[in-house]
């Protein structure tokens, strides 16, 4: 199975939840379970889909987030107040969680919770 290399960046203080690191390079499989399950187990019986932003968010919650899940995710998507840019473009223009990730895509998560 092929993998896709992605760049993840954080802004607005969100890096505090991810080991205080502002930038990550990660590799994810191009085909992932449709139910967004990120456990490393047999995938033979699971229905698959192309890697999308929804799966990326679940992967980040399960494998990268150090603390306070509720500050990052709420009801299977990012918490209100967190902006997502895909290749410098608002994810709302790219279909939000349904956007199919490509090789070399850059995804930025910006928290607006430190207002004022």
């Amino acid at each position: 199975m092929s993998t896709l290399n992605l760049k993840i960046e954080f802004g607005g203080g969100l890096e505090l939840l991810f080991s205080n690191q502002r930038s990550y390079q990660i590799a994810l499989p191009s085909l992932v379970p449709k139910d967004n399950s990120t456990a490393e187990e047999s995938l033979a019986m699971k229905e698959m889909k192309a890697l999308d932003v929804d799966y990326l968010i679940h992967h980040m919650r399960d494998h990268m987030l150090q603390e306070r899940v509720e500050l990052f995710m709420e009801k299977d998507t990012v918490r209100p107040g967190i902006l997502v840019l895909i290749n410098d473009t608002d994810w709302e223009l790219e279909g939000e969680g349904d956007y199919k990730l490509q090789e070399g895509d850059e995804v930025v998560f910006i928290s607006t919770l430190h207002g004022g």
Partner: protein
Amino acid sequence: MSSCENPNTDKDALMTRRQKFDGQTKICVKCKQNTGNVVVRYAVYCKSCFFLLVQTRFRKVLEPSINAVPDEPRRKALRAVGSLVIGFSGGTSSTALLDLVAKTYFAPRTIGDAKDDAALKGGKDHPRNAEKGIWKGNPAVCYVEVCGAFPGEKDRIEEIREVVGYAGKPFEYIPLRLEDAFDPNWWDRIGGGNIGTSARILGLDLSDEGLRLVHSSSNLNPHDALRMYLSSLPTQTAFYSAIQILIRILLLHTAASRKASHLVLGTSLTALSVNLISGIAQGAGFAVAEEAKEEWNPRPEQGIKVRVLRPMKDIGMKECAIWDWWNGLREHGRGKNAIGALTRDFIYGLESDYPATVSTVARTCAKLTPKEGSNGVCIMCERPAQHGVQGWKARISIRSYHEASSAVSGKSRPPHLTEDEISNLTKFPVNSSSATSNSASLTARLCYACHTLLTSRSSRGTSSNPAGNSSDVPLPLWVHPTIGSADAGNPVDNQGEADEGTRSVKLSRKDMESRIADFLLPDSE
């Protein structure tokens, strides 16, 4: 279309979320040429048009209020009567505000403007030429460090100094601390005025609603005075609201000491909506207009009138965050609070699903005007205070279970409170003689919100004071000159209403006619 039926009876009646972007076109609505990069409340903008949009909205709020006479027709040039102070917290919208002010009004001259430089007699740094700008003197960036109120929090003064340094010349950095509000040295440095020996040693008795002023025996340093003041407040909400009030008044006095005519704050549209709703929830509805824009008059010897503006108030938090990211700016924010946190979570959820609602909150509140005018300024928050605060409180609430004991019986008593707890909550009824004793009281000088902040009781009990003493609580220094001066400054006219409330007298038709006789038009034949 969305439905307004009852979702409990009809499961299909839930309001469906409108798509923020309908997928029709990704082309920028402004230039109609470039592919869009961001969606701002249902509209698509490319990067260039987004920058222009934000800057235009920023200037549209700020510039009409720069000249002494706002919105004059055929305004020729922007010219303020004083200097500029920028309140900076390190958060998202503050960072965007500082960047916008720097780029719009203090952009560095490009190399090669020899013709312009030669025209400046004495050089571009000569004081005479500093006044060629809109504001007099150099702008100041003021940051209030709040770690004194939060044990264990990092002191970020030097970190913020670096951030302000990136804005470059001519911005001056003025760090303050929350405890400066209790520091006589700071008060003297900014020329706050003579407090007077007797006023300096006044404390506040928070143990009952009378809010009596007492001769203070404590000799606390500013940091301990701050901790004691905050820990004596009755609720968690009051704790965070008091911090916000302290920050705002510290900024105002600093602005006055620099002869500033404008204090700009980075409140975004989202934050404004949060502040409005949480403020109303805490009894500050009378001052909704001041949340967006206000004018503050310092004492005559202290400075000129300061206009407090929030130029980011038409710009959402999303736009601020995108501006910061695309300009390579980094935020240094922090903070949470009680009612404010709940409101913020609610508003942020609204903004995600129904973005237009947030701007609706701000627009609706902008239309509100108080039913009655104000004839005083609250001594604590220095905002207009409504007339008849104590009378209003007496009319809308049972102030004492002792008074209401005949009306409250059996199931009317709150079941979760014991008799001792009820007795503690109502130890000093409002009408008792102790409330009208000879000692001065702060009550008559406060607006409704500040009085509630100091006296509101939670059924869970009051927050604990480590010293175990809420009868001698230090006061912020700006309260003292008003108490100490002979004419008591500008108190709210509640003196006669503390206990009695207001009485209405029914006039006869003849009396009414005689009162308005001068305004009646003659009957025409």
